[in-house]
C-alpha cells in the first residue's frame, strides 16, 4: 500500500510519523502499549514519593517534593494525550491500569522507607528514566517525541533535586549519612533493572529499534547509566553496593554486577513488595472519585441542555 511505503520512507528519513499518517497496526499497538505504560508509571510513581510529602523535613523540601509529584501528574496528562492521538481514549487507558491489564514501571513497587529514599529516587530512578527517555525525544512518533522533550527537561530538574538531597544527607550528621547510604543500597539494583531484561531476553526490542521507537538496547542504556553514576557517587561520598564494580580500561566502561532478573520478573508479574498496595491505592482513589466525576458530568449536561 502507498501508506506503508510512505511510512517506511518517513522512518528511514528520520522524519516524524504524525497522527494523521498511515501506520502499521503493530506500530500503533506498540506505541499505545509503551506510552500508556509510561503514563501509568507517572501516575503510580506519585505514590512512593507522595508518601513523604506530609513528613518532609523542611518547608522548602516539602514544596519541592509536592511540586515534583505534581509534575508527575502533569507528565501523566501529556502522555495520556499523546496516547489519545493513536485512537484510544483516556477512560479506556485508566480502566486498563486499574484492572491490571496494562503495566507500569516495576520500580514503583518498592517502598519508600526513609526520607533518603526521596533522594535516591531522584538521583537513581529519575536518572535511569532520563537515560531511557532522552533517546525517546527522537522517537519516530511525533506526539510522543514532543511529550518526551518536555518531560525530560523536568526530569533532569528532578534528578538534580534528588542528587542534592543525597548530597546534603551524606554531608550531614552520621545518622543522615547512614540513611543516604541505606537508600542507595536498596535502590541501586532495582534502578539497574529499570532498563529491562538483558538484550538476549528482550522480546519487543528488535522491532522497536527498526521502527525507531527505541534507539538503544537495554544493555547499552544500562551501561550508560552505570558509567554516569559512578563518578556522581564519588562526589556524593556514597558507595554503590556492588563489590565487583570497577573500571575496565580495555573495554572503556565499568564492569558491574547485573541486577537479579528473576526478581525483576517476579515484580513484573505482580509479586513485588508493593504491587498490591499501589494497585489498591489507585483503585480506591478511582472508586472514591466516581461520585465526583459523575456529579461533574451531570452538571455539565444540565448546563449544556440549558
Amino acid at each position, binding site marked *: 500500500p502507498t501508506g506503508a511505503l510512505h511510512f517506511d520512507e518517513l522512518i528511514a528519513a528520520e522524519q516524524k510519523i504524525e497522527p494523521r499518517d498511515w501506520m502499521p497496526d503493530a506500530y500503533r499497538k506498540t506505541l499505545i502499549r509503551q506510552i500508556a505504560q509510561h503514563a501509568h508509571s507517572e501516575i503510580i510513581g*506519585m505514590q512512593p514519593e507522595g508518601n513523604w510529602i*506530609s513528613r518532609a523535613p523542611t518547608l522548602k523540601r516539602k514544596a519541592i517534593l509536592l511540586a515534583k509529584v505534581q509534575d508527575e501528574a502533569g507528565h501523566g496528562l501529556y502522555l495520556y494525550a499523546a496516547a489519545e492521538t493513536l485512537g484510544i481514549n483516556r477512560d479506556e487507558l485508566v480502566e486498563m491500569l486499574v484492572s491490571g491489564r496494562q503495566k507500569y514501571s516495576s520500580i514503583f513497587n518498592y517502598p519508600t522507607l526513609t526520607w533518603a529514599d526521596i533522594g535516591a529516587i531522584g538521583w537513581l530512578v529519575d536518572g535511569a528514566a532520563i537515560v531511557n527517555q532522552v533517546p525517546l525525544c527522537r522517537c519516530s512518533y511525533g506526539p510522543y517525541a514532543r511529550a518526551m522533550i518536555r518531560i525530560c527537561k523536568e526530569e533532569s530538574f528532578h534528578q538534580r533535586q534528588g542528587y542534592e538531597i543525597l548530597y546534603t544527607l551524606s554531608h550531614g550528621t552520621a545518622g543522615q549519612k547512614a540513611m543516604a547510604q541505606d537508600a542507595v543500597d536498596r535502590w541501586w539494583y532495582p534502578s539497574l533493572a529499570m532498563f529491562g531484561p538483558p538484550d538476549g531476553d528482550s522480546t519487543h526490542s528488535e522491532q522497536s529499534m527498526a521502527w525507531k521507537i527505541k534507539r538503544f538496547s537495554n544493555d547499552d542504556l544500562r551501561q550508560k547509566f552505570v558509567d554516569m553514576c559512578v563518578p556522581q557517587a564519588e562526589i556524593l561520598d556514597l558507595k554503590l553496593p556492588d563489590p565487583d564494580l570497577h573500571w575496565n580500561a580495555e573495554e572503556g566502561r565499568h564492569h558491574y554486577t547485573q541486577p537479579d532478573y528473576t526478581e525483576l520478573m517476579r515484580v513484573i508479574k505482580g509479586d513485588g513488595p508493593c504491587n498490591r498496595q499501589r494497585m489498591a491505592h489507585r483503585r480506591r482513589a478511582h472508586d472514591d472519585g466516581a461520585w465526583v466525576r459523575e456529579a461533574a458530568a451531570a452538571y455539565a449536561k*444540565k448546563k449544556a441542555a440549558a
Partner: protein
Amino acid sequence: MTDALALADDALIAAQRLAEWCSRGPELEEDIALANIALDQLGTARLLLTHAGQENGRTEDDLAFLRTDREFRNCLLVELPDGDFAVTMVKLLFLAAYQKPLYESLSEDGELGPIAAKAVKESTYHLDHAKLWTIRLGDGTEESHRRAQAAVDDLWPYTHELFEPPFDPLRTTWLETVQTTLEEATLTRPEDRWRPTGGRSGVHTEHLSLLLAEMQVLHRAHPGATW
C-alpha cells in the same frame, strides 16, 4: 506579630491537609489543581512564618516544626479532617472567601503588603476553583448534593471563628460570596448557632496534634540537622 502567625498557620495547615489528596484526587486534573493550591498556601505560609519569626530570630522551619499544637494559631476550620472531596471543596470555599478579602486589606499594609498582594492573586484562583466545584457538586447528582450539603452543615459553625474581632467587618463580604455560591449550588445556608473557637489562642481540636505528629516527626528526630 500574632496576626501574621495566625495567617501563616492557617495557610500551613491548609496546605498540609490539601497535600493529603496528592495521588488520591477524583481525576488527574484535580490532583494537579489541589497540589497547586497546596503549593500556594505553603508558599504564603513560608513567607509569613519567616516574617513572624524575624523578631525572635526563628526560622520558618523552627516555627513549623518545633511548636506544639498548643502554640499553633490557625483556625479550627483548616485542621479538621477532610472526609471526602465535598468537605475539601466546601472548606476551601469558606477559607478562600475569607483569605481573599483579608489579604486584600493587608496588601495596603507596609510590612505584609508584598506578601499579601501575591496571596490575593492566588486566593482569587482558589476561590474560583472552590466555587466551581461547590456548584458542580451541589447541583450535580443527588448523592453529590447530599454530600455537599452535609459538608456545608458540618463546616459552617467553624467559620464564625474567622470573624472574631477585629475581623468581624470582613464577614459581610464573606457572606456575600458564600451565599451567592451556595444559592447557585442549590445548597441551603445553615443557621448561625454553634460557634466553636479556640484556634487563635492555641486550644485546638484533637485532630491537630495528630496532624503535627506526622508533619514534624522527621524534623524533630534529627535536632539541628540540615536538609
